[in-house]
């Protein structure tokens, strides 16, 4: 049942819990208890909103930054990852297999702001060997949601 609950609120965290309980065939109290437990267990880590900033007047640039680092004795990649994820402008930090080690997603107000983060803060960290910054030009799909959607169905008689 947990899986079903999570699937539903992953798609819509604002879903009406009374309706969700009906749809899943369980009582509202049981559902609320289950959700609280998952919040306590940090299975549910937060509730966010998916925004198409393109449609607002707010200027924003997003970037993906590939980072190659030297792991540190006794701490592996965790220490350097922590140094990076503590910056509030950093959205996400992943440790990856493959050609580079860490992938950062970052949001800034302008190209300049992102590039100064890379040159002033990121590149100057001791264990960072190199970085490659990719600016996002267009978001087609985010969090499983296609940003531009149109539905064209023909009317028919069954």
């Amino acid at each position, binding site marked *: 049942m947990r899986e079903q609950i999570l699937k539903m609120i992953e798609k819509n965290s604002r879903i009406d819990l009374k*309706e969700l309980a009906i*749809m899943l*065939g369980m009582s509202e109290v049981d559902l609320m208890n289950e959700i609280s437990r998952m919040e306590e267990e940090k299975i549910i880590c937060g509730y966010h909103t998916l925004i198409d900033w393109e449609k607002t007047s707010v200027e924003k640039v997003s970037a993906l930054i590939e980072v190659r680092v030297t792991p540190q004795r006794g701490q592996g990649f965790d220490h350097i990852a922590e140094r990076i994820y503590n910056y509030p402008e950093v959205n996400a930090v992943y440790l990856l297999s493959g050609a580079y080690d860490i992938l950062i997603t970052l949001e800034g107000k302008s190209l300049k702001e992102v590039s100064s983060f890379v040159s002033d803060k990121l590149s100057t960290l001791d264990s960072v060997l190199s970085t490659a910054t990719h600016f996002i030009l267009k978001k087609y799909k985010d969090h499983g949601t296609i940003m531009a959607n149109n539905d064209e169905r023909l*009317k028919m008689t*069954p």
Partner: protein
Amino acid sequence: MRNPLSDKIVDVKPSGIRKFFDIVSEMPDAISLGVGEPDFDTPWHIRDEGIYSLEKGKTFYTSNAGLKELRCEISNYIMRKQGIKYDPINEILVTVGGSEAIDIALRCMVNPGDEVIIPQPCYVSYEPCAVMADAVPVIINLKHENEFRLTAEELEAAITDKTKILILAFPNNPTGAIMEKKDLEAIAEVVLKHDLYVISDEIYSELSYNEAHVSIATLPGMKERTIMINGFSKAYAMTGWRLGYACGPELIMKQMTKLHQFAIMCAPTTSQYAAVEALKHGDGDVAEMREAYNQRRRFLMYQFREMGLECFEPYGAFYVFPCIKEFGMTSEDFAMRFLEEEKVAVVPGTAFGDCGEGFLRISYAYSIDDLKVALGRMKRFIARLREENSK
């Protein structure tokens, strides 16, 4: 000038749903809960396979019975789901939707005057197809108190010495009724006793919410006398691809293939390639859509209980069939007023047979948001009717 038309065809009544939807299409802001078509798009990997086949230039006819690869996958699928084996070479025919299979099965099996038993309420094409095959349709009016299941007694009472075929369509459109194994066993006994054949339309087989659907063909002695019809429209949200299939004894399938060859040649090639992908890798998609339908089904049943609207709990397809007899109106009047006053389209039960009088078919192949709005309006509408009636 001579009359260009065939009397037989002219006498066939048009679909009762048609008239209604002509009005709906003139109302752009109406919410329709009328159409029996999944609101999901075909899963992308299936569409992708269709596109890929086009890119590779696979635009030729397939063999009349359908791509061998597809027939093998259909055979595997039925084995996986029902545990019975159909020979992909001689016992499976790929058709243009389940609809074609219904038509040619009837035309291949009846002689003029043979009786075909059709339990109603049911899908709109069985009766006209039987008539066009020169059969005599014999209607059984299924009962609300039996949750619209067919009982052995009802079947027995409809059989004459001319009866040849029983059409079974469960999970059912429009009622959402199912037939469980024990129900089917009682029917099979009567079928065997009277040496009948069964055309079993199982197009909604994947949409069974309590337990997995059982085909009557799996019961002892029944595979030899059953044409099992299924397709991709409902399970994989592939309505527009127009692809279905029929499975049955070689003797009958041979004639059906012949008819299919003369009328159709073969089912669309692109659709067939896409369908191979659906059967190979589509089980997860089906499970996900089934869960979504089930959630909506629970939501609707809850709303009906809240409104105090009588409705048996349907466990199949994507329809609910609430009873509106308390309002003292015909189904058609109810549906028409509901459409005019609240701009919500539902289908009067009478579109599916006379015994659908007093019922409505509501499809939940619509997003939960649409359903919420529509049910809110229904609540308001019903409250208004009750108030009028109490005066």
